[in-house]
Each structure stands twice: as C-alpha cells, then as structure tokens.
C-alpha cells in the first residue's frame, strides 16, 4: 500500500453534499496538485464526522483536527496553512465537544464493593493510606483477640468460597491444612490469572496490595504457616512492583517478620514471578513453578494441604479469596453472609468483556441474574444488537444461551447449567456471533496452553481443534458432531488436571445449546451468523454504492473493480473475505451473503 503522511477525511453524507462537499473535495484535490502535495496527502470520502449541521466538514489525521463550515474557497488556505506548513487553521476548528458518552457511567446501583472498596481510592504505594482506612486492624484483632480456631470459624461461617476456581469453602480449606501435623507450613496466593481478558486480580494487586498481604497474614496465623508466596505472572509488572513495595513497607513497620504486633507470631512472604503459562494457575503446577521446577501439574491426592510447596502442607487461595478476609474479620461473618445467596455468599468481581456496552471490571453480590449483570451493570449489548449467549468461567467455562438470562450467578446454578464461576471472566456475545467459531477460539487457546504432560489433553484437544477448524472451513463431514462428543467425554474423564478436564466445556456447551449451528456448517455449508470466511461472500449493493473507490483502494488482493462514481463489484474468487472493504465503506454498501 502507498504511504501517505496525512489523511483528510471529508464527510460525504447527503446533508454535506447538499452543502457543497463535492465542490470542497474537488477544490481540495486541485489545490493539493497545485502545491505538489497530492502524493503525500490522501483525501477520503467518509460519513458522519460530526452532525453535518455545519458542513461541509473534514478531519485531518494524524493530528485529528476537525474542521467545519468549509467552502471551496477555503481550501487554498487550509492546504497552505495546515497541510503544507503544519499550522492548524484555527478559525475552522470545531471546539472540543463536551465529553458526553452513553457508556459513561456512574457505577450501577447493583454493584457492591467489598474487595474493590479501596481500589482507585488510596495510594497503593503508601501504606499510610491503607492504615487510614482501617488497614491491618483486622490483623490486630486476630492477633490480640482471636485464636486460630476462632478465625477459621469466622471465615467458615461467612460462607466465603474460593474465588479462583472450584469454589471450595475457604474456611474448610484452612481447617484441613491446619489439621495436618507437619511443619513448616506454607501459603501460596494464586495471582496467575491466565484467563484471556480477565484482570480482576491484577486490579486488586495494583490498587490495594495490602488487603491481600493482610488476608495472607491472617490466613497464616489461622493455619500455622510461617512463609508465603504470591505467584504472579511476569506479564503483570506493575502488580509485581506494587506488591513488592507493599511487602517492604509492611515489613518495615513490623507487620511482616518476627513477632508481629508483639503477639509472638512470625510470618514473612515474597513474590514469585511466573512466565505466564495458563496451566501454572492450576495449583499443583503453580507449586512446582514456585519451587523453580517446570510448571506441570501432578496427580492429586496428595493435595497441597498435605504436600505442597517443598512437600510441606500448603494452603493455596486466589488473590480475591485472601483480599476478602480482612473485611470479614472486621465486619463479622454475618455481615458478609448478608450478601449473596444461601450457598454462595458475598460478592464477586467479574471482568465483563465482549459485546457489552460498559466492558470492564465490576463487583456484584452473588446471586445477581445474568440479565442484571449484562443489562444493568454492563449497560446492555453494544450497538443495541440482540443478545445471543454468555460465556462464563473463562476458557474452561461454558456458553449459555438466552434462555438462561435469568439464571442467578452462583456456584451451583452455573455448574448445573453447564458453565462455571471460574475466576470471573465473562464474555458477552451478540447475535452476530458464530458459536462454532467461539468454540474454536477457546479450544485454540486451551490446546495451545496444554502443557503436554498427559496424552488426552495434549492429543485430544488437538484433534478437537482440527475438527472445528475443518467445520469452519466448510469441510465438515457427517459424523463430526458425534466424534466431537466422544472426544469431549474421553478427554474430560481421563485428563490429569483441570485444564484437560475443563477444556471440552465450550465445545460441549455450544453443542448442547447451538447444535443447529454446527449442523448448518456441516450439512448446508452455511455459517448462520456470517462469520466463518469460507462460508460467506462479500457483495456490493449497486444501488447504494457511490463509487467513491475507497474499498477498491483498500482491498489487499485487488478483488474490487469499478469506475469512479459508479458502482463497484467484488470478484469472489480473488476475495479473501478479510472484511476490510466493509470496514472502510462509509455508505454501508457492502453486505455479507
């Protein structure tokens, strides 16, 4: 493609054309030729730059300057001043529009912040800020007023369940590790956070690191552990740095180390950086990696509670599990249990992603319906399209169709519906999403992240991916669905760790809820959502095409031909279905068939 230093986008909507946009463009082109800039500056026709009410208007990139109220006679001035001398032609500049945005939000009233209470409110690099909001008061209460058994009892009664995976009771897990008669004992904090698009833990570590440290010290006291490791991926450099600063500050104040608060209890901790392999989030692989070994899982039992780091009893919890603890101690178990449902207490952070208006991180009470999560907290589907499905639980979760929109978000409901809580990754999909393609996307991820230690996961996920690739390429055959189902069953039943056991979930759940889409791909060679490239065709609507030539100039394979100001055509044999023409067309004249 030709390189232009500057691009001028001129609005060519009917309103602007009526006001003389074409004359402005012609004058601009003439002036560029006259000034010898025609090879450096590209003029493009586009639509909807502003409101057209003060057109013709244009935007000059890379500066992004927006001019309006233009006439052909202004072009020599603009070309001379801006495009030649680089000075912005102030008198035509549209003033910065006020910052209004329907996605702009005050947090939804349905959000409740417990874990995220301090995030964005305090300076994470200054322990004084944390102390000012009752930081380490829970620790002081535990060390001066409570026995380890009372701490475990409080956490158990709060109903807090693990926030990183299967949702095991945090208090019960502590009890099990406490009961093992073997010392020293260790803690690990799982901050691997490998789910694509999820960053709940990162936010807590970066925004409120002391809450995690305090939670871990309390846990260590309850269990009788003397040392802890936070296992954080190296892709989170700011989290690692912030956490290290926080640990140093806590140590300097004597909140970590020997004889904490004069109680006789001693505990210290460090950060271990991982290389960012998804499997290292699995607890036995995490422990191996903490020990400096290759991050591969091993069979359980023995569970980490019995044989963990350095083959000693180890309690492993997620970042968010630990971060909840100080507030449970201060607020009391009944307060915490007042949020959520009967079996799923408290709040959970979710990373809302995909086709939702307000994507980002939210914290909501458990038991909220998927509908409220998507439409209230998330603001609804982007561009007001239809809702198709939600994928919850990360790459090993499941896809739930619209019939499940009123499902409460709690551990049991999600699991029985074929999805899972996981660590809080939520992908919302609109009605233009191909579910076979989605299954393929997640399988591509898990297949790539399979550590290769056990055969079902290493080979099985590969076979599934190959079949899905074939189906999406329009080469699916009779029997593929049955083979997929068999593979899913076998891989789940025989894999060594949760990665293989969970990897088939996206395929199984889409097969269950969207079987007709698989069938359309295989038997009719049709992608109902018009996503899979091999099964679609791009066509230009001749009655809408203005012949502006933008598509033809941007087509990487020169598949589009036509005369200027006359409708263009796409040659389907040369077209590679990249969709660039559709993206650059300003008149919605390109359709997928």
């Amino acid at each position, binding site marked *: 493609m030709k390189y232009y230093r500057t691009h001028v986008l001129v609005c060519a909507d009917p309103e602007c054309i009526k006001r003389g946009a074409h004359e402005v463009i012609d004058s601009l082109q003439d002036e560029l030729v006259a000034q010898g800039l025609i090879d450096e500056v590209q003029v493009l026709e586009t639509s909807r730059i502003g409101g057209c009410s003060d057109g013709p208007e244009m935007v000059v990139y890379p500066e992004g300057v927006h001019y309006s109220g233009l006439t052909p006679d202004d072009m020599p001035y603009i070309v001379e001043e801006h495009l030649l001398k680089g000075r912005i032609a102030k008198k035509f500049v549209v003033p910065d529009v006020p*910052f209004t945005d329907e996605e702009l939000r005050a947090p939804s009233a349905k959000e409740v912040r417990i874990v995220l209470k301090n995030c*964005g409110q305090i300076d*994470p690099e200054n322990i004084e*800020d944390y102390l000012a909001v009752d930081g380490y008061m829970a620790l002081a209460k535990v060390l001066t007023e409570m026995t380890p058994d009372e701490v475990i009892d409080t956490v158990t009664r709060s109903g807090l369940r693990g926030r990183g995976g299967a949702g095991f009771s945090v208090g019960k897990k502590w009890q099990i590790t406490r009961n093992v008669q073997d010392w020293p004992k260790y803690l690990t904090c799982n901050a691997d956070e490998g789910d694509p698009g999820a960053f709940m833990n*990162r936010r807590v570590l*970066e925004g409120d690191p002391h809450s995690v440290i305090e939670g871990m010290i309390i846990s260590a006291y309850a269990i009788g552990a003397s040392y802890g490791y936070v296992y954080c991926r190296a892709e989170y450099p700011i989290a690692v740095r912030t956490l290290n600063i926080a640990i140093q500050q806590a140590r300097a*104040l*004597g909140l970590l180390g020997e004889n904490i608060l004069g109680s006789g209890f001693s505990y210290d901790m460090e950060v271990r950086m991982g290389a960012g392999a998804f499997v290292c989030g699995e607890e036995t692989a995490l422990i191996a990696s903490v020990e400096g070994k290759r991050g591969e899982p091993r069979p359980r039992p023995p569970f980490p509670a019995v044989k963990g780091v350095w083959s000693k009893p180890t309690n492993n919890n997620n970042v968010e599990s630990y971060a909840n603890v100080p507030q449970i101690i201060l607020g009391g178990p009944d307060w915490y249990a007042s949020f959520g449902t009967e079996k799923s207490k408290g709040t959970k952070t979710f990373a809302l992603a995909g086709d939702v208006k307000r994507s*980002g991180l939210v914290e909501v009470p458990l038991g909220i319906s998927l509908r409220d999560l998507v439409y209230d907290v998330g603001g609804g589907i982007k561009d007001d399209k239809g809702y198709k499905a939600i994928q919850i639980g990360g790459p090993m979760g499941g896809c739930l169709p619209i019939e499940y929109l009123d499902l409460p978000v709690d551990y049991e409901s999600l699991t029985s519906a074929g999805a899972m809580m996981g660590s809080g990754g939520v992908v919302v999909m609109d009605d233009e999403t191909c579910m076979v393609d989605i299954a393929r996307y997640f399988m591509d991820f898990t297949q790539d992240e399979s550590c290769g230690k056990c055969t079902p996961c290493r080979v099985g996920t590969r076979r599934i991916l190959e079949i899905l690739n074939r189906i999406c390429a329009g080469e699916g055959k009779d029997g593929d669905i049955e083979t997929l189902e068999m593979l899913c069953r076998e891989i789940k039943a025989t894999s060594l760790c949760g990665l293989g056991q969970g990897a088939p979930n996206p395929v199984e759940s889409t097969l269950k809820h969207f079987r007709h889409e698989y069938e359309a791909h295989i038997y009719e060679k049709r992608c109902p959502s018009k996503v899979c490239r091999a099964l679609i065709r791009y066509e230009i609507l001749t009655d809408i095409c203005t012949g502006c030539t933008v598509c033809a100039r941007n087509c990487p394979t020169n598949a589009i031909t036509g005369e200027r100001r006359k409708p263009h055509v796409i040659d389907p044999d040369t077209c590679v279905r990249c969709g660039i023409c559709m993206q650059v067309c300003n008149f919605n004249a390109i359709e997928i068939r």
Partner: protein
Amino acid sequence: MTTIKSLEDLKKLREQALQKRDVKRAEGAAQVIVGMGTCGIAAGARETMKAVLETIEQEGLSGILVTQTGCIGLCEKEPIMQVVVGDGPKVVYGKVSADVARQIMKEHVIGGKVVENHVIPM
C-alpha cells in the same frame, strides 16, 4: 517510621495518617490523584503525571499533594485524574491527556473552576 509493636501503636499510626489527611484538607490544600494502574499507564497516565508535575514546577505552586492510585473500574476513560480542593468534593476527570491535565491544573487546581467537559459523573 518506627515499627508497630502493639495494637496501640497501630491505632496511633492510623490516627496520624487520618490527621495528616484532615490537616491538608483544612489548609485548603489541593490533592491531585492520577490513576497509575496498568490500564492508566497504557492509556498514557505517565504523560499525564509528568504534565501535572511540570505545571507545578513551572508555575511555582506549593501545597499541592500529588499521589497515584490504582484502577477505579473505568478503564475505558483512562487516564483518569481525581482532584480534591480543600474540603470540596472529589472531581473525577476522564481521558486526561497531558494537555487536558495542564488545563485542569490551571483552571481547577489553581483557578478553582471545574473543567466541565472532562468530568465523569459519579
């Protein structure tokens, strides 16, 4: 800082931290807080922070407390800058480029006038 050896020490430190904050507020000091989580930095928060510090230096301002914070959950509006002047309410600004930061410093922090078109309603 000395080490905390007891609950009393901890309480004392908490009081001190709270007091420090209140004193600054009572003196009418301005507080400028820049979101420096991964999302903020990716959106250019380092430039924003630099612009704030440079403005303070160039204008010879004093009594302004510049701090950082983590992600407040509005990643798509980063860089985010929060401004508190004296005991006034906290104003949250979004999409604060270096230029906008300089504008906020001059108009709001010095001039006391909120820069409306970058405010995120909370």
